[in-house]
């Protein structure tokens, strides 16, 4: 899919719609890897595009729309951790599932490879600062310098966290296999 370009869209609203179509799902999934709660990830996705719509006129094209949106998303996720709601939010998915009966775990276990599931769970169980690096580097396939640009964390620290995250994952993996 080609990146969204302003010149291809006639209005700001059309551009927003294009951005949601192209990056909405990625933003929602990225947010989930931070907050581990679909309801919150949906809220954050909405907040990202609210900010995007408000600031779209100020976007100077110094980065791609994707990088810009990711930066907003990561900041929103970190803001969320600072909020009082964060400490209350962990069981929310369970509450929602209670009412909706929504569940994909069994389906996932049956359909998906067990190892994929285990690896994904181990990644999600990592401490946040390690998980963030694994997601940005391996899941989003960003370069170290891109992660630095997005998170403001120095390259040396990023490499250290990546190394430690992998050590932790190897340890967890060894315990379950």
């Amino acid at each position, binding site marked *: 899919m080609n990146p969204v370009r302003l010149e291809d869209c006639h209005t700001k609203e059309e551009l927003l719609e294009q951005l949601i179509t192209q990056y909405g799902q990625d933003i929602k999934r990225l947010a989930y890897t931070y907050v581990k709660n679909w309801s919150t990830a949906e*809220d954050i996705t909405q907040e990202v*595009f*609210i900010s995007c*719509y408000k600031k779209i006129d100020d976007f100077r094209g110094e980065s791609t729309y994707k990088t810009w949106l990711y930066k907003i998303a990561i900041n929103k996720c970190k803001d969320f951790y600072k909020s009082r*709601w964060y400490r209350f939010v962990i069981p929310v998915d369970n509450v929602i599932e209670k009412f909706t009966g929504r569940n994909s775990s069994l389906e996932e276990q049956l359909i998906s490879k067990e190892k*994929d*599931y285990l690896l994904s769970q181990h990644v*999600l*169980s990592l401490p946040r600062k390690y998980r963030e690096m694994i997601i940005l580097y391996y899941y989003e396939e960003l370069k170290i310098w891109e992660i630095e640009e997005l998170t403001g964390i120095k390259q040396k620290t990023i490499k250290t966290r990546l190394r430690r995250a*992998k050590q932790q994952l190897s340890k967890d993996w060894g315990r379950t296999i």
Partner: protein
Amino acid sequence: MDDKLKNLRESMNNTVLKRGTIDDFEKRKILNAAFSGEVQQKRNYFPPLLTTIVVTVFFLTIGSFGFHHIFGLKQNSAGIPKLQKSGLENETKEQVSMVTKNTEDNDKNTGENLEDGQANYPYIVLNDFYYKKTNEEITSDQLGEQAGEVKRIGDWAIKKSGDSNEISPGPIFFIKGRTNDYIAGKGVVFKDGKNIAAYLVFKKADQVKESNTDNILSAKGDTEEIKIAFQNIKKKVGTLFGFMNIDSRASLQLVSYSNGPIVQLYYSAPEGDKKNGNELIQGELFIYQYNKDIQLKDSRFNKPVEYDVVKGVNGKFTTKKRDIVWKKPVLAESFSLNGISWEVFEDAYYNDLVFKGQTEKYNIEITTQGNFPIERMKDLLKFYKVAE
């Protein structure tokens, strides 16, 4: 580990991030939120409310205790411990023991923590018993033998061994030096401002009671519950249509009677899977069945409502209904199958087909996701009939 991580995107998208897709409905929701500048939040107000109540009750209790102590009054009220002993130390001990006793009382297997036979606390189900989450965490070296496995997370009407509403699928263990009334599983705790993984301890509590399945009218994600809900709805509406005897081609994923008497069914139909670049769009069929005298709000034959943003004089954005160019779906073909008169409409607005079925009493509306040309749908509809 590096090799495994190279496929992390695929691994996660196929498993834990599978639910992260955005459909048209959610896209509209995000657009509306962006235009209105307000998130349509679904946050859980119960925990902060509960915390407020607990803190208030705690301070009222302490306040009452202090008041009676200072003024030397004897406390006779029910539910408040006797405080006639002299000296702060004794009283403090009394307070502590009261708290401990109450906690123990709550842990008794009295069934008082069940609502309609269902646990109202965080649990793991193992061998027909709920194991209730305690406030304790242990380290991996305290884990004993494996007790079982959490197989699915969520809350279902029919509880099965391996269900948990608290921790993700994975092994669960007995604990060294403890009876088998205690088990532990890997979960998440919030400590020192961080979300960290920890082994959470669960204690054997209430026995799982057989569920009353008569009230299950909506289900998703559990084959058994879906079947029960389908049969229960059938009893309610009298005649219920569905794809019969082609489970491998069209399997029921969701049954809903929440807008009863409108019945909603979602089928997964892999033959309609479609690739969009690297993304796989899964073949799905969305069905509404409703009495002819009912107006279906979400019908494709109603004009969709969309919003535009208007910048007010104060610089703030407000929403205004968009004057969209929309035309009613256009009839393309008609045919009859299994006593249902079908009309196929081309929907230019969504660029797909809508299948409208009619019987003497019911309207049926089917929309699709994925690749479902008329011929494929006709072949599938041969199996769409009155449920047995």
